[in-house]
Structure formats: C-alpha cells, structure tokens
C-alpha cells in the first residue's frame, strides 16, 4: 500500500520533471537557453533515473542514464550542441516521457525507437557502448529510496549536482526622464512584478536635482529590482513590455549575485539560493520602497555598489557544496485529491443557490430592498461569490503543460512529413478548469496535426512562395470576456476553398449549384464525413475529421470557428467556458415547466409573425426566415409534457444549431431569464433522460432541467430524417472512396 502511494507520488513527480525537461529542451532549441537550463534538464533526467531505480524500472534507468551522460558532456562543454545533437536531445526527451508512461502502465515493452535513440546517445556520449547502467542505476536507486520523499526538491548527489537554479531575476531600470509623461507609473509596474514573486526594490536617487531645478514631470530615479521566485523571464518582460528598452533583466545566479561567494549548500537551499546574500545586504539599509512620486526625499537609497558585476566569467561548475539532506520545504504547490475539490465546489454551488432562495423568500415576505437584512444579504451574496471564485480557482490550471505537449506533436508530425515547423505558444499561463485542460488535449492534438499536415507547405513550396522555409504555428490562449480563447494559427497556404467545395459537392454535403460564401465554405470542414486529405496519411485524414474536433469542443460547451486567407494561413479559434461546473443558460418555459437551454447553442430568438409560420405536412411547421425555411419543434411536446404540438405566433422561437441537423427552431412559451446556472448531474440518482443533459437549481429552489440540444434534435427524428438520408449517402460515398 505504502509502496503504491510512493509509486503514485513518483509518477506525479515525473510529470513535473518531464515538464521541466521539455521546457528546458525547448529553450535549448529556441536558443534562449542559459547555462542553468542545461543543468535543469540534467537534474530532471537524473531525478527520474534515481527514483526509477528505486522502483526497478530498468528500461527507464538505462535510458535516463545514457541521456544523462550526454547532458553531462553538454554542460561541461565537452559536447557542442549542433542541430544533430539538439535533435537527439529532443527525441530523447520524448522517449523518456514514453518510457515513464509505459512504466506507469506497468509495461515492460521497449519502444521501437529506443535502440536507435540509445545508439545516437551513445555516439554523442563519446562512449562506443552504452555503459552498463543497470547496476549503477539500481545502486543509485537503493541509495535514493530513502531520500525518496524529497525527490521533488533535487537529487542528492555529490558529483553530479549542478549549481543552484537562478531563483529570480535582477531588473535594472535606467533613469527614463519621460517616464511619467508617457503615462507609466512605477508603483503599478512594481506591484505587478511583486505579484510574480518576492520583490525587493532599490531606488537610486542620485539623479535628483536641487529643489529649485526640480521638474515634477520628469523622472530622476533609477531602480534596481530583485525579484525572487520562479517567475519566468517572459512573465517579467510581459509586465515591462513598454519599457523594454530601458530595463535590463538578468537571472540571479551565484555568478552575478553580488559576487559574494555564497557558501550555501547547493541542493539543500536551492529554493532560495540568493536569499542569504540579499538579506545580508539588505540588512544595513532599511528596505527601500518604490516612491510613488518623484520628490522622494523620504526614500532611503541603497548604496548602489554595482551589485551584480560579475567580473570573472567563472565556470558554472564551481558550485559544488557539500550535500546536506534536502529540506522538505520547497513544496510550493499542494497536491489535493480532485474529488475533495469537487465536493467543495458542489457545496459552494449549493451555498449560492441557498443564498438565492433566502433572498427570494425575504423579498416575498415583504422586506424592503433597503432594509438592514437585505443589506446583510447582499454581503452574504458577495461573500458566497468570492468563495465560489476562490474554489473554482483551485481547479484552474495553466494551459502550459497542454501547450508543451503540442510542441512534441508538431515535432513528430513535422519530422514524419518532412516539414520544418516551429510552434510558438503564447499565453501559457492562462488558467482554465482542470477538466478542460484534460479534455482539450485530444481535439487540440488533432488540430495541430492538421495544421502541420494540411496547413504548412513543404519547405520548397514555401520558399517558392517567398516565405521562410520554416513554417510557424502559433498557439495562443487568453481570457476574453468570461471565455477562454484558444487560437491555432498557421502561416501556411490557407484553405483550398475550391477543393473543399468540390469535395463537399462530391460527397453530397452541398448541392452542386450552391453559391456559398467563403466562410460558409470554410465551415464545411466541420461537417460530418468531410475530410480533404487526398491521400490518407497516418497523421490526419483517418476518416475522422474536423467534425470530431467540433463535437468535442461543443461537448465542453465551447465553440470553434475558422478563418483563412489564401497564401497567408488558417486560424482556428476555440472559445471555451472557464469551467464545466457552471454555464450560461437561457431560462425558458414550456407547458408550465421551466427549462434551461445552453446559451452556447442558441443562435437567435424570434417572436414570429403569423405570416412567417408555414404549416408543413400533417402537423409540422416551418419558419420562414431571411429566405430559408427552418423546421419548428414544439419543445414541450417533444419532451412529452403536452400532447399539443401546435405552434402559434404567441410562441417564442429559439433557433438552435446542431452539427447534425443544422438549424432548428424550438417553440417555447416564454423566455424568463438569462443567467449562469450550476450544473447538477441527474445520473447519480436517476439515470440518463433523452433530451436532457443535466439539471440545475434556480433561485426559487426549484429544479430546472437543462436541455441537450443535440439530443433534442435527434428526438425530433422525423424532422431530421431527410437530412439524415443525405448524410448517410455522404457517409456511404466516403466509405466507398476510403
């Protein structure tokens, strides 16, 4: 049991270490690596090796050992990082991830590619035979079994320990006279920086003139900031984006940290490598605070003694402190069983509903809205919302690991197709619900592969088109008005609309004489049974197309759209809700029942004019809208609430779109509200209901059912039948062709 726990911890740690590894290798590849990067990679591999030995994961140990040998040569400068070596390192990182995965599945399988990569590693390590790593590895392992718990910190290893990571950055701000005139407020900037880590500011007031010559519009100050923590340089640059030219950012490593010979233990205190030094320096002078106003008489300036002048460019290897047992205190994250968080989220959801119920009851019992109790209730509501946001934030995770996985997809796909593609990711820190991160992986993988396969051209075609040989795929995430927006944009050839239209016509998805606008043609890609791949590659075009992606995104409550410019590339945009626990819904009434329609599938709502309603067949109706006809379904009838299927101009029509049935109008009695609803599953206590996806609880405490628009439309089978017939022909043809 305890061993199982240890295993689970091991794999959880591996995940983190592999993330660090892939982050490092990417930096290496991008050329933004610093000395420390190689050490970080080395440590990650070494940690995996050590713990893997403890669990007797021999494949993993063997491989990690060879990998580590090469990395060791790299960091000692014995190996020059050329394209070839870089390639091997990237492949090795992927292989290591595969091996961890295999080990987790308790499989002893040796991946096909492993011997090849081992051989490459052997070449690079300058040793003809890979060392018999097994014995060494497991010996290591025995040793480290005892020290397993602090694995996350750093390996305990006398010989191979690298110097401490730069746990922070030094940012030097030159005096920018026009700082204030350009609308910058250092206090704001610094407080943003302070949010990234532990910020220490030192102000240089030596530029201040005599009082008489003082110009309040002018900035006379310079600053030196020390930011401790694990904030990335990119994050810092983000904050200082408008002042990029005036500030200098350098990592705080032992080299430039005041030139002090810090004699702290490399491993044990690697959490705060420069803390000791900085505290020592900060002690004699009171800590300066960034002045909000230029006349900063009260600010105590620190003697600026060129703190960071690293005179000697010493070898990085010099830091080899005596190893002390690593202290288990650098745990900055908390591992919590997701179920506990879910329970908490549920309870908070109930609290909010309960609050709404109380509010409604108080109003009903005649309390004035300005009465004391209503004021208190407002506070209650505010607190409950705060609590909800806080709890939701626990589930939120940055998209970074997801995006990093995509790097690998691009690499592999590019290699397989002989294309040179680089993936640039933006907004990796954007946080979304954990479940969304997990469930996005597959559609995103598919889209990225598609972009490499269909979007990016081969290098010679690109050069011929006057573009750089290397294609770029831009993957970005950002919060946008309550949604998360994820974009995948390539700089490839753009969509071949002629071919798309031709294929669609051939497959009977559109009429041959149909006149479609460009966006309409682009959206054909999302139709079921559509795949443009001229030959079936094992990357994309396996019969599943973008329609699967769209279905996956829709099932997450999101939307996906496409835009393309010939010769310039294609962009897919995915808009997702922040969480799966709440969604935007339209509260509707049908035959006396209150229902909720997911807002994401509602296209528009209409109060029909009598002349727009056309009888169709024995008891059907069509809505004439802007020159087309849309079938109308009486929602209450469809759900069996009433036998009445008539549609009158008194009904309100809600136009919803589904992937399979196109546009359909649902006739309802009334729309009463549009609000966020907390999603409650029905399956636990009841089971699945056709046409209903879940339930929610409204302000009055009553349960309202959330309709499943796709299922509703398939319930209205007779309406979809004609379309289904067409689709089937399409599928049959596709099958015949495939």
């Amino acid at each position, binding site marked *: 049991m305890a061993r199982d726990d240890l295993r689970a911890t091991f794999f959880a740690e591996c995940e983190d270490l592999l993330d660090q590894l892939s982050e490092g290798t990417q930096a290496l590849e991008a050329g933004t690596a610093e000395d420390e990067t190689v050490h970080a990679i080395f440590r990650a591999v070494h940690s995996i090796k050590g713990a893997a030995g403890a669990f007797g994961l021999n494949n993993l140990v063997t491989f990690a050992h060879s990998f580590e040998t090469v990395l060791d040569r790299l960091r000692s400068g014995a190996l020059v990082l050329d394209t070839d070596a870089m390639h091997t390192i990237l492949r090795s990182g992927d292989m290591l991830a595969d091996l961890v995965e295999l080990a987790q599945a308790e499989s002893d399988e040796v991946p096909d590619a492993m011997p090849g990569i081992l051989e490459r590693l052997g070449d690079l390590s300058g040793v003809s035979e890979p060392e018999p790593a097994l014995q060494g590895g497991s010996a290591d392992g025995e040793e480290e079994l005892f020290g397993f718990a602090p694995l996350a910190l750093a390996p305990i290893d006398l010989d191979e320990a690298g110097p401490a990571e730069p746990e922070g950055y030094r940012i030097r701000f030159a005096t920018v006279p026009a700082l204030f005139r350009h609308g910058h407020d250092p206090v704001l900037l610094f407080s943003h920086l302070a949010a990234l880590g532990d910020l220490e500011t030192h102000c240089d007031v030596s530029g201040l003139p005599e009082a008489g010559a003082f110009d309040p519009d002018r900035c006379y100050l310079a600053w030196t900031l020390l930011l401790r923590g694990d904030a990335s340089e990119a994050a810092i640059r983000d904050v200082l984006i408008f002042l990029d030219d005036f500030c200098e950012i350098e990592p705080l490593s032992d080299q430039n940290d005041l030139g002090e010979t810090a004699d702290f233990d490399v491993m044990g205190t690697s959490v705060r490598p420069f803390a000791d030094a900085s505290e020592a320096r900060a002690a004699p002078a009171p800590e300066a605070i960034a002045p909000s106003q230029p006349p900063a008489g009260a600010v105590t300036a620190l003697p600026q003694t060129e703190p960071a002048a690293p005179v000697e460019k010493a070898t990085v290897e010099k830091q080899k402190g005596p190893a002390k047992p690593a202290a288990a205190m650098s745990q900055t994250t908390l591992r919590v069983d997701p179920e506990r968080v879910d329970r908490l989220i549920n309870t908070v959801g109930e609290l909010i509903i309960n609050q709404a119920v109380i509010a409604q009851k108080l109003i009903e019992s005649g309390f004035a809205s300005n009465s004391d109790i209503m004021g208190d209730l407002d506070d209650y509501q505010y607190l409950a919302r705060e609590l909800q946001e806080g709890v939701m934030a626990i589930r939120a995770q940055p998209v970074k690991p997801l995006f990093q996985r995509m790097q690998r997809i691009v690499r592999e796909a590019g290699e397989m197709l002989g294309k040179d593609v680089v993936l640039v990711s933006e907004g990796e820190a954007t946080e979304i619900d954990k479940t969304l991160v997990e469930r996005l992986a597959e559609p995103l993988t598919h889209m990225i592969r598609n972009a490499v396969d269909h979007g990016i051209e081969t290098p010679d075609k690109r050069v011929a088109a006057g573009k750089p040989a290397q294609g770029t795929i831009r993957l970005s995430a950002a919060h946008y008005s309550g949604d998360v927006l994820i974009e995948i944009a390539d700089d490839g050839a753009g969509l071949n609309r002629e071919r798309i239209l031709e294929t669609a016509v051939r497959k009977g998805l559109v009429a041959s004489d149909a006149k479609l606008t460009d966006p309409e043609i682009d959206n054909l890609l999302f139709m079921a049974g559509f795949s443009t791949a001229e030959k079936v590659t094992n990357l994309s075009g396996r019969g599943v197309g973008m329609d699967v992606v769209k279905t996956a995104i829709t099932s997450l409550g999101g939307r996906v759209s496409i835009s393309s410019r010939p010769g310039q590339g294609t962009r897919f945009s995915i808009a997702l809700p922040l969480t799966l626990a709440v969604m935007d819904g339209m509260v509707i009434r049908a035959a006396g029942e209150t229902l909720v329609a997911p807002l994401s599938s509602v296209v528009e709502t209409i109060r029909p004019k009598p002349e727009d309603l056309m009888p169709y067949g024995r008891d059907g109706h069509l809505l004439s809208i802007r020159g087309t006809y849309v079938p109308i379904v009486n929602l209450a009838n469809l759900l069996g609430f009433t036998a009445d299927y008539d549609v009158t101009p008194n009904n309100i029509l809600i136009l919803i779109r589904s992937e399979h049935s196109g546009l359909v109008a649902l006739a309802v009695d009334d729309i009463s509200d549009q609000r966020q609803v907390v999603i409650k*599953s029905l399956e636990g*206590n*009841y089971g699945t209901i056709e046409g209903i996806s879940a339930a929610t*609880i409204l302000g009055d405490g009553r*349960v309202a*059912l959330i309709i499943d628009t796709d299922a509703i439309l398939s319930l209205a089978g007779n309406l979809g039948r004609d379309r289904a017939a067409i689709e089937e022909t399409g599928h049959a043809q596709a099958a015949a062709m495939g």
Partner: protein
Amino acid sequence: MPRPQQWGDDDILEFVTLKAGGQSFCIEITQIREIRRWTPVTALPHAEDSVLGVMNLRGAVIPIIDLAARLGLGECDASSRHVIIVVAIGEMTVGLLVESVSEILTVEGKQICEAPTMGGRDAPNSILGLISIEEGMSRILAPEILVPRGLTDAA
C-alpha cells in the same frame, strides 16, 4: 411462521411506519436519510407514471416516486399534507411520496413474520416481511424495488 433470514431472532430493529395507498408500510430506519414536507417537483420527460419528477434536496437533485402508484395502489394526489421520505438505495438517493409517517417501531427479529408469496403482480419481493401492530400489520418494504424499473438500467 418462519422469519426472513436477514434478521436474527434477537436483533433489535427499528422501523419507521408510513401510510401509502391506505395501507401501512415500514422501512428500516437505517435506510432513511430524512423526512421532508412535500414541495412541488419538476416533471421529468418520458418518465413512468410513478416518477413524479425531481426536487432539490440541498443542492442534490433527487427523483421523487409516488409510492402508492409504484405499488399499484392508485396515484396519490400530492398536497402539502403529504410527506417525502428520503431513502438511500445503494449509491442513489430517492424520495418517496407517502400519505403520512406514523411512528417508529422497535421490534425484535423474532417478531417479524415472513410475507406470504401469493404470486400477485406487485408481490415479487417487494415486501420483506410483516410486523403486527395495533391497527393490524405493517409491511416491510424492500427499498431496491422502489427504484423504478428502467432507472437502474439507465444509471
């Protein structure tokens, strides 16, 4: 008369007695989560007649079943005088609409009589045993059968 095997002779058992369809029933107290006043429910589409709908039990959505209708004793016209007994059946929580809840019976295992099987249409296993009470007898319900047919398949 032989006793049902699940109860030992000397077990001290507690049952809540209730009225549904004019008859007295009882449910072992350990299966009952709480007893609530009737509040209007939200109807479920395509549900069988005995499933009245779902209601909000402190944030959980639970189905409400008309016990009388479920046992074939005629539908109950729910009003605020009626009572919902919330029972736990395995992983599920279900509310049973009954006419009233009467008392808590404390009996010894040997006081429970086996229910005669008569092969009637609602008889199969729905009654686990019988307890004699002042006004006659109370029927011990098997909660498993209270889950509407089809629900368990769907879940």
